[in-house]
């Protein structure tokens, strides 16, 4: 463990800025503060590279010998002591970064910064009131998200999970579209249900650990053999402890991912949320579910993961196919992208469910790839929504002619989402598919893996189908009269899109240098826990 | 006779009682506030006296410091409330604000 303060700054800098946002007199200043704060957070998060950029050094030096053995920028402070005595269990303020959280922290800061830039034209939105409040909530949201990714104490994790929830509720509910209240409440209640289940698990983990070893530390829970044994042996309400807890946790995280059949909040929330919030929703919030699975469910309850793998794989599969089919049926542009998110997150679930190193790598890569491509797609939708004030796919046409630069960037973004080799989406999908297909090499009992891989691969065709069809209806075709005068992408929009495009290319061309080497070590350690 | 703790405490008690009396008898809301300030002053005096003659540390001073700061805050809010009160009822008579009586 290497102690440091970087993560604390990272988490709470946005909070400070949020307060500043409320204090400053003018809306413009609030915007400026938000942009500067998110930008600073981004720069700070780049500081994590000092630990992870390991050209030439051995992986062991960076990632340590086992799960949680080597954490960076750790702050560990006793927060709430439960009981008396020096050895009493404590709820800790315990944050740290490892190969699992590092990419997600970076993703969060990048996407948030760009989403913040995307909020710059908030004055021109339909609902342009309370701009300071907007940015304040926005920054609080960033705190929550970064907190979730940084915290290594289950309780702290839970707190940040909730912290992130509330601003999102308001951001959708206040600045959203016509059915914003419905969407916001739906989102809120769904997620709250998930959190309640998580709370149950949180308490169960605490009380089912042997007395004297009780802890909330996620690392300790996963690594301590006595705790693990206790969990394996225990029963809960007559059920075996581990599977039951796993199911509860899984529902909690599945709602966030979202997994069929808990996904219906997502299209509504996406459609009603303003563009930057959609970007954050798709880019980061969905990733929290996957992160939670990898950080909590699987390391702590690996046996339950194996027990449930078939069902989980099936759910992932359903997500892929079902999401793609639903996406194809959409006429609302944003809804289409939202369903495509469901489809893409299916690969993540599938990759996690098979519990092999390659699967986890693929899943995490898909997480990052989707974190880049989907905000880009949402922003692309937002750009034309700003101009046309509707999102009916069938009413568009020929936009590439009036907006050549935007059209080119849109093609790139959607191709990245489609999984074109050379762009980020491909690697994740390919890794997951191949890993699923070859899962039996690791787990010989996974006889279902191969058929799953085959069925999942049809998703590749469906994805191409709906994306190309959408591109055709929106960007290609004859130029329509009403869209002739549309302004091409402005500098601000290009500034937002270009980093996404660059990242999509970078991840697609150099997956190892850009991502894999920063996380594979930790992922391998997690898979080592399964044996 | 040297000046000791008791002297200060009795003085503080006097101030406290004066403040209390002001609070009970003044009908002007600001007058009540002034009474509160007197009471707080008495409390501060006690704290400082205790910290000097009883404990010998500066903790009492710091507590008094916080009281002063909080009193300032309290006064600010109170005055704001009074201004609103005055706007609504056109008087500052605290007895008139009894619409919520049980």
């Amino acid at each position, binding site marked *: 463990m290497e102690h440091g303060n970087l993560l604390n700054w990272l988490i709470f800098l946005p909070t400070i800025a949020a307060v500043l946002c409320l204090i400053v007199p003018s809306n413009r200043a609030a915007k400026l503060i938000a942009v500067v704060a998110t930008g600073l957070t981004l720069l700070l998060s780049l500081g994590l590279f000092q630990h992870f950029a390991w050209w030439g050094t051995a992986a062991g030096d960076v990632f340590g010998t086992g799960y949680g053995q080597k954490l960076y920028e750790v702050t560990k402070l006793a927060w709430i002591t439960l009981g008396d005595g020096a050895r009493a269990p404590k709820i800790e303020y315990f944050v740290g970064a490892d190969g699992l959280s590092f990419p997600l922290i970076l993703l969060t800061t990048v996407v948030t910064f760009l989403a913040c830039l995307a909020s710059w034209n908030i004055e021109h939105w339909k609902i342009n009131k309370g701009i300071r409040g907007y940015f304040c909530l926005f920054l609080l949201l960033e705190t929550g998200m970064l907190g979730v990714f940084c915290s290594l104490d289950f309780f702290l994790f839970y707190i940040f999970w909730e912290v992130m929830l509330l601003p999102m509720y308001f951001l959708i509910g206040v600045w959203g579209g016509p059915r914003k209240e419905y969407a916001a409440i739906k989102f809120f209640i769904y997620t709250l249900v998930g959190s309640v289940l998580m709370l149950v698990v949180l308490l169960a983990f605490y009380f089912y650990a042997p007395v004297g070893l009780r802890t909330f530390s996620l690392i300790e829970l996963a690594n301590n053999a006595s705790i693990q044994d206790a969990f394996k042996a225990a029963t809960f309400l007559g059920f075996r402890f581990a599977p039951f807890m796993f199911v509860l946790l899984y529902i909690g995280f599945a709602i966030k991912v979202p997994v069929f059949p808990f996904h219906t909040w997502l299209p509504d929330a996406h459609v009603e949320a303003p563009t930057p919030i959609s970007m954050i929703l798709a880019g980061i919030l969905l990733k929290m579910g996957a992160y939670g699975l990898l950080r909590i469910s699987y390391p702590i309850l690996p046996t339950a993961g194996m027990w449930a793998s078939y069902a989980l794989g099936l759910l992932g599969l359903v997500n892929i196919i079902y999401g793609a089919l639903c996406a194809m049926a959409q006429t609302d542009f944003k809804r289409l992208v939202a369903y495509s998110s469901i489809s893409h997150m299916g690969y993540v679930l599938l990759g996690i469910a098979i519990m092999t190193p390659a699967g986890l790598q693929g899943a995490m890569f898909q997480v990052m790839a989707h974190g880049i491509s989907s905000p880009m797609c949402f922003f692309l939708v937002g750009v034309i929504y700003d101009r046309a004030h509707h999102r009916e796919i069938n009413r568009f046409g020929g936009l590439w002619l009036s907006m050549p630069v935007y059209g080119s960037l849109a093609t790139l973004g959607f191709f990245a989402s489609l999984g074109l080799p050379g762009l980020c989406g491909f690697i994740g999908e390919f890794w997951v598919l191949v890993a699923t297909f070859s899962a039996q090499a690791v787990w010989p009992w996974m006889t279902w893996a191969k058929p799953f891989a085959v069925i999942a691969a049809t998703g590749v065709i469906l994805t191409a189908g709906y994306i190309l069809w959408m591109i055709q209806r929106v960007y290609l075709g004859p130029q329509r009269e009403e869209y002739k005068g549309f302004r091409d992408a402005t500098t601000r929009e290009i500034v937002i899109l270009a980093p996404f495009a660059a990242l999509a290319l970078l991840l697609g061309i150099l997956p190892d240098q850009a991502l894999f080497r920063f996380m594979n070590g930790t992922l391998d350690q997690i898979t080592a826990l399964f044996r | 006779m040297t000046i*000791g703790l008791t002297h200060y405490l009795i003085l503080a008690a006097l101030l406290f009682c004066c403040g209390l009396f002001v609070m009970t008898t003044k009908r002007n809301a600001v007058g009540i506030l002034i009474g509160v300030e007197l009471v707080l002053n008495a409390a501060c005096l006690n704290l400082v006296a205790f910290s000097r003659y009883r404990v010998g540390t500066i903790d009492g001073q710091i507590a008094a410091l916080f009281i002063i700061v909080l009193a300032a805050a309290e006064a600010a809010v109170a005055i704001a409330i009074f201004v609103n009160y005055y706007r609504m009822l056109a008087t500052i008579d605290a007895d008139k604000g009894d619409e919520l009586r049980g």
Partner: protein
Amino acid sequence: MSGEAIAFYMLAVLAAGSALGCVIATNIVRMALCLLGTLGAVALLYFLMAANFLGVIQLIVYAGGTLILIVFGIMVTSRMYGEKLKPRRSEALIGALVVLALFAGLVAILWRGPWVTVVPTEQPNSVAAIGQALLGTYLVPFELASVLLLAVMIGAAYLAQPAARNGRGTEREE
């Protein structure tokens, strides 16, 4: 009688006198003026107790800030020739009885109580000590107090602004 005693008695008389002035005064501004006397006297008592910093803060915050605020409030809410708000005599009487009883009880307790005291020591640098205590042991209350002040500032500004009544207009027109 030492100089300290003289100073104490003078200040005590000033403080108590001002406080009684507060009690007696019917004019609210006079009450404020009397309060100034009490505050100043108490501040000087702090000096006497070697709590220089506290005394100064008492002067600057209480006398220079809070009291001015109160006077300000008076000016906004009271007319010089407005209605005289006098309590009923019975009320004053009951109040006086209660308070006198309280005072008597307090004095009795104080007088009787064997107070274990320490010999006062002079802090060589009490300002620095206070500063270190505030930013060390008392850091959290200190920060909380600042947050409270912020909240109060916002709250007071909100309460006092003219348009706040109709529940709208929190947005500043730019």
